[in-house]
């Protein structure tokens, strides 16, 4: 019964791991993955020495860390707010609505951005300019300064509802007696949230946080790739899109593998590091 799963994982995950050696070899069409001449760290050196190294690394870290700083707490806050809503119908309406964007594909999301933020005719763009949240002369789709905020806030828009599900689950398992006890002690709603609900969902928050740190360099390829244009490439070229551009589009297989391996290793180190820190300070971790 396990055989199909094991075979699949072997072919599509472990065989490519064996293929990592491509990053240390000169690829040639005639000899395939393992037959090329040993090149050592040549391709890593080529990447580290190229100007794209700093650009892609900085862009990736910037997008990833801002995604975590803004995107991580947003669903927690939404869940806590929703948990305070006692009117069942309104709560149901809000929940049903906020889950919908999750089902929208990246392609449709990016084209929604393209029409809603278009210079001149974009309804949302015009509104943001009218209330002075965005400078009047800014081109939200082309200006390099606008790329990261548009990427991050549209991500929040899409996933805040879905991400809040898990926290709502954790909140619904808080012992009801604790609320009664808090009331007897004279705590108000806000104090109840801080002293009862927050500690109750802290383990959930920590585990999700560790996992998101483990994926720090895995910023979504699809969305960035689709949002890229010639105007914003300076801030939108990240490691994953760079691997695709050099590795697949221009067929520099060894170089692409080396960049990809660098990405994987950094992620792995981050995961281990965060996990260790989390264990040390909060006592809960993954492994």
């Amino acid at each position, binding site marked *: 019964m396990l055989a199909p799963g094991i075979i699949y*994982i072997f072919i599509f*995950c472990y065989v490519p791991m064996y293929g990592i050696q491509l990053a240390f070899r000169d690829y040639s069409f005639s000899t395939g993955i393992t037959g090329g001449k040993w090149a050592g760290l040549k391709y890593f050196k080529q990447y580290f020495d190229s100007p794209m190294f700093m650009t892609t690394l900085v862009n990736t870290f910037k997008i990833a860390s801002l995604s975590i700083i803004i995107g991580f707490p947003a669903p927690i806050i939404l869940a806590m707010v929703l948990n305070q809503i006692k009117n069942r119908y309104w709560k149901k309406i809000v929940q049903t609505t906020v889950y919908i964007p999750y089902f929208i594909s*990246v392609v*449709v999301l990016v*084209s929604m951005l393209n*029409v809603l933020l278009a210079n001149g005719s974009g309804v949302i763009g015009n509104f943001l300019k009218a209330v002075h949240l965005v400078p009047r002369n800014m081109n939200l789709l082309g200006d390099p300064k606008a790329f990261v905020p548009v990427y991050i806030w549209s991500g929040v828009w899409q996933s*805040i509802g879905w991400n809040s599900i898990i926290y709502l689950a954790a909140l619904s398992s808080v012992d009801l007696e604790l609320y009664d006890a808090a009331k007897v002690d004279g705590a108000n709603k806000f104090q109840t949230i801080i002293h009862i609900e927050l500690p109750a969902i802290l383990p*959930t928050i920590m585990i999700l946080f560790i996992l998101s740190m483990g994926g720090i360099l*895995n910023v979504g390829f699809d969305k960035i790739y689709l949002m890229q244009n010639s105007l914003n490439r300076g801030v939108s070229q990240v490691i994953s899109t760079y691997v695709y551009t050099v590795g697949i589009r221009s067929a520099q297989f060894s170089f692409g593998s080396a960049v990809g391996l660098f990405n994987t290793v950094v992620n792995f180190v981050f995961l281990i590091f965060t996990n260790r820190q989390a264990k040390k300070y909060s006592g809960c971790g993954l492994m």
Partner: protein
Amino acid sequence: MKNKKILTGDSVFVFFMYLITVLVFIIIAYPLWFIIIASVSNSNLVNIGKVHFWPKDIRWYGYEQVFHDARIWKGYFNTILYVAAGTALNIAVTMPAAYALSQHEFKARNIVMFYFVFTMFFGGGLIPLYMTVNALHLINTKTILIIMVAVNTYNLIIARTFVENIPNELYESAVIDGCSHFRFFLQIVMPLSKAVVSVLILYYAVFHWNDFFNALIFNSDNKNDPLQIVLRRILILNEAFANGNGGVQGGYAQSSADQVKYAVMIISTVPILCFYPFIEVFRKGSHDRSHKRVKMVHSCGGSINRAAEGGYSQSKNVPYSVIIFCYERCFYGFQSDICA
């Protein structure tokens, strides 16, 4: 007196909470609503910012164009094939593996579990994966788009957690009646796992429907293009529309092309929203079966659905798999880095 003060403070607080939900509701709902009204309104009015809350000068031009476009139908056909065949394969691979891994008598289960879990955190990367697929001669085939991501480790963990909670007594009594593992799986485990299977179907199907990455990497043959790739050409690369009579050369103005775009966005998203009620099916399923019949209190079905309902549960803790599960869905970029 003191009590009253706290009460008023709390009402202000609750009022603020309602206010926030109203704002969130508007922010999430308005862009969706706008796309709907823009798809049926006169595009010139949309472009000069005259359409805000209700459609104006209703016309169905965009939808007519979409229905006459062969590329979209081809894309639809391919996507439906990938969703149907892909999801069926996913269930056929994930459920038996989950069952085997849930059996405590299976000695190597921890090793095998590690074998799966390791791939979540480490992988060969995109290029070696591409080379592997290439070596199998699967580039530019429909097959690769069906079998890519045949099993997803997170989903496997969820399924295993669920199956583990089926009481062992059932298996013991079945064995006494002379039932084999295989038959037990098909006739007892699968029917009892409807709740988790519907969750898996929901997620795998949404994944296949929205999958853009794998088609971009592994396919460059137009006849295999799924809907998302076709959409990208029409919506983002602004390719000419409808049998060559679209675009600038075709003679109709940019404004009409815009209306077509709105229609395309809706036509391509509505089918996957049809999977939305699956959440409901799954909710019901987990209630009836897990709670009443076998009391799988900690099954993932139960917890998520209670979460979705926001109801109060008897369950004291959320299974870890559920945490991973929801997390991965939304945060980790499931599509982009299955093994990368």
